[in-house]
């Protein structure tokens, strides 16, 4: 099972946890599992055409999946997916 790291802005949508585990052989399959079990993440991760939103980056370990094979990128059991949406908090 791969580990998915949930960023602060998405934690409310997954019950407040920082990490979840999901089965799947590709980035797309795993994110689908996440969305199926936590429907609130659907619109945050994916655009209506099924692509990853451009303001969300997904990394397989430390590499952006867009420079790999995108949603088709193969994922192993010990890999970690990091979801990184843009964050702007300067705490005025």
């Amino acid at each position: 099972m791969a580990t998915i790291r949930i960023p602060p802005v998405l934690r409310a949508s997954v019950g407040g946890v920082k990490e979840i585990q999901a089965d799947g052989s590709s980035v797309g399959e795993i994110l689908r599992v996440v969305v199926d079990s936590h429907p609130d993440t659907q619109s945050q991760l994916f655009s209506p055409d099924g692509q990853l939103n451009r303001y969300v980056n997904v990394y397989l370990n430390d590499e952006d999946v867009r420079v790999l094979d995108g949603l088709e990128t193969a994922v192993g059991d010990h890999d970690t997916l990091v979801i990184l949406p843009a964050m702007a908090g300067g705490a005025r």
Partner: protein
Amino acid sequence: MSPSGAEVLRQIKSRIDEIDPAAAREQSSHGAVLVDVRETDEWSAGHVPGARHVPKSHLESRIEGAAPDRSVPVIVYCASGNRSAWAARTLIEDLGYEHVSSMTGGFTLWKDRGYEVEVPRSMTLEQRERYSRHILLPEVGMEGQQKLLDARVLLLGAGGLGSPTALYLAAAGVGTLGIVDDDVVDVSNLQRQVIHTTDRVGMPKVESAAMTVMALNPDVKVEQHRLRLGADNIMEILPNYDIVVDGLDNFPTRYLLNDASVRLRIPVVSAAILGFDGQLSVFKPYEGPCYRCLFPVPPPAELAPSCGANGVIGVLPGTMGLLQATEVIKLILDIGNPLIGRLLMYDALAATVTEVKVRRDPNCPICSRAPEEISDQEMGAFPDYDAFCAGAH
């Protein structure tokens, strides 16, 4: 009877290589390291350009900073060639340096020959004391400290991130700090904005920050910009600075800053914080990705929680702000591996740091083009900019 000092020196000189200033000049141009072993006041009055300063009294402990590779030729000089002979003997016989020579006639003969001399701008005694722990570091030294004193850094915000950054950059002797902030100190700021104090509630933040900086280090000049950074002023303010520290609280300005900094080729040390989590990266135009390479578009307002009032643990901007200050100092001194093309994510609760790679986007709407091709109209623009801004404040 023990031999006299003069006799010992004669014996040492017979065992070591001595070279004339002309040969020293020639060899240093081919990679030999010139080491000046005189005292600091002598060095400050003038030295051979490119030489490293390692006072003879600290030779054993500091030579590795100047000449880490013992197989690289080292030429030692002093004022006349005597102290350097002693130093050469130490390097060869005690420290194992393989190719050491002492320059005959020392710096005095070098000058008499009319060879080039570098006179470092002098620091006051008080400055040498104040920055002594920097000066002791081979990576900083007098030269590095002078770079810090000459540096001009712009801080966007004197808030959570800007407070610790300003304090430590001021303490480090960064000579000019520009601070942009249109806000006044509020009591709710004081849980994290450590540059301000309780008795300054209601005072403009730029003014309060300037007071603290001046009290900490009178070497530092604070330029107060009491305004909100926008398209109407960014191109007037940014060109006056070498590095920008971004602690911005909203996306529209962050994109505007990115585009202006690419156009002006000014590196931006950027951090963001939320709750117990922080992000940090360095965007150095044309050497690494820009902010638009990382995030081509901002998230919708509901996914950009900085737009509303959100909590942050007070220590977090301290941690992230000091990481920013560290990156600023590395950029000024040109040392280490700056966080270019990498993004750090710090999780304070878990006490973990995760790093991911940030690639330059060959199709980036901004940094894939030459700076002069970026127009005023494009700067800070993205789809639905107005709608986004309406929700941002």
